[in-house]
């Protein structure tokens, strides 16, 4: 999937699979291995790998 940034990715996920982008927005995201707990402004490269995952808590 081609997307310029995190928000563009959510929009495109929603367009292809309605509701998926909204669900993903509730999660943390890993972009090229780096985890962002509260993403919004992150940019993506053409070959970026993106994973959505629950926010990690700790003790």
């Amino acid at each position, binding site marked *: 999937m081609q997307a310029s940034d995190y928000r563009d990715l959510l929009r495109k996920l929603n367009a292809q699979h309605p509701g998926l982008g909204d669900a993903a927005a509730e999660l943390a995201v890993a972009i090229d291995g*780096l985890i962002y707990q509260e993403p919004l402004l992150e940019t993506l490269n053409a070959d970026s790998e993106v994973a959505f995952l*629950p926010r990690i*808590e*700790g*003790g």
Partner: protein
Amino acid sequence: MAEARDLKYVGTRPVRPDGVDKVTGRALYGADQTLPNMIYGQVLRSPHAHARIKAIDLAPALAIAGVFAAVSGADFPAVADGEIGGEGGGNVADVARNVMARDKVVYHGQAVAAVAAKSNAIARAALQAIVVEYEPLPPVLSLTAALAEDAPLLDEQCFTKGLSETPSTPSNVASVVNLARGDVDAAFAEADHIVEREYEVAMAHQGYIEPHACTATVNEAGEATVWCCTQAPFEFRSQTAKITGMRVGDVKVVSSEIGGGFGGKTVVYLEPVAVLLSRKAGRPVKMAMSREDVFRATGPTSGTRVKLKLAATGSGRITAVDAQLWYEAGGYAGAPVGPGCMSMLAPYQIENFRLRGHDVLVNKPKVAAYRAPGAPQSVHAMESAVDELALKLDMDPIDLRLANVAEEGTQAPYGPKFGPIGMRACLEAAKAHPNYTRALPEGAGRGVSAAFWFNVGGESSAEVHVNEDGTVTVVEGNPDIGGSRASMCLMTAETLGIPYENIKALISDTQTGGYTMVTGGSRTTFATGLAVIRACEDIIAQCKARAAATWELDEDQVDWVDGEAVPAAGVNADVQPLSLADIAKNASRTGGPLLGRASLNASGAGPSFAVCLSDVRVDPETGHTEVLSFTGIQDAGKAIHPDYVEGQIQGGAVQGIGWALNEEYIYGDDGVLQNAGFLDYRIPVASDLPMIDATIVEVPNPTHPYGVRGVGETGIVGPLAAIANAVSRSVGQRMTDLPLSPPRLLAAIDGDT
């Protein structure tokens, strides 16, 4: 980016700045705050594990001389569902009910009312006068009971989340999580070896030595100040505001020194109650829990069951894992089963897995975060299965783990690909460790476990004030639990290039410092450390600008080297270097005081891996386990203050050993905790254990200037399985359920199980 370089202060072991105050008793803890006209609050707790509250009459208590105020759930505003904020807090409406029950109690000891009086004795007497009408309900005290088809329901509105379709009937399963990859069934069909077991770990408490305590005062303008022992002053401010219906800006939280937290002091219990009592009484209110209160109504962490099936080739390649996990949430949803699933396979490259986790309501206290929440229990199951596979294959257990080890580039089970990680380095250090290479003592068993925890970053703020003589004050918002004052001073010394002795670190309250997330998630040295480093870099930039102005040079013609401004290479200027003290002394003439600031949301926390080794010997006549040696080997990324890192490894080991061998919540059929004290809830003491050997591995985290990963949590993840594997090898049979207390072991040895 972390890179190899000579470090002058980072990695040294100076004396801790808070040590003298703590050993002389000068340090102030949660219950030490005293104010004029202060009165004392006590909590009435439910005598039932499960009951509806039909009515509460506070009037008889209020009629007692010396009683100033009383509250019950009806005095608190309605709180809508939503995230509480902080670590493991869950739903704010549930936390509000946990602070003070409304229409129902869901565990024995839950708060149902509170009074404030001029003495604790009067307050306790007043509690006895409160009339509560209950409708007792049958308690649900185990996973088996909670999952039974006809189980009494803790919450009639609990419709399991996480299923493809919302069920039409409620149950005690609050949510289900799934984590899957590859073709598990095909991998099992082709497997040479299969290990299949069911493992249980008992509910256990964080066991911090300092009970929860706070003092609150509300002024005539309705503004509250709360002094308390907390890991999370800013989250406590938010939680207290939400639960009492106040604005965040009208609540000020001042954290005391803290006698342990381990995740258990990340969510409020007393603070909103003290605020309401103070508002009603017009006086400051102090509240402090007893040890019994702490056991009955705070923490603990989940008791768990994991059913696990592992497939492997004849050469020891693990090809698939199929597992179901059930975690006790206590009376309200929020067991850490998600991170349990996400962490249990992280040390390995496994192409096929199918994990299904369940968050299960039971009539026990609402669980709170505990060091690497959820991971010790799931990793115990996986690492026990790996040990059993090693025995089946007659293979060295470290070699088996090396044959499956996760490396840089491995796709983690929870999604992203790992960057540089230290799992292999820890395994290799373990294999070469003298505690592993030496002969096994007679009659002993040797256990191995790998371990993992994510670590987190998050929001932090810091200020660096340069005083007029060049000494420095660092202001940060994380209560110092694991040595963060010293770590912040060391990173400041390294970044500014000034002596460690010239720096002091202060912990702000929620009004005098910038927002900083919890001291938890192994985040403080990483994320707040990053804020401190950035604030120091702000100071350096200002110093270079002031030196340039002094020397009539451009800013880019000045460098900062070893704590001094100097002309940059190639700049021809006949000037003497200006130290931080020189610039501070003249600051009033060059722009005013030097104040560096940074606030950030740190991403890129470095995952942490570890290996635990232990030799144990089990007495066949008593079932007592003697721990002969224990070794924790952990990747710290970079140890800023190695003493503290070793202390974290040792502390995690001791807590994990206690959980493995003795610690458990024991309930009667009536839902009353039978061992709510340290005499009966047996945590290890120094005489129970050998010196814990700690080895620091350093595979730098590339996202931190000095390579820091978190270190506070990973150390508790491995000991459960390391001990269980050592005991299993010692007694010659697989021990699957923790704790491995003498009665349980004796029954197994005698063949009674």
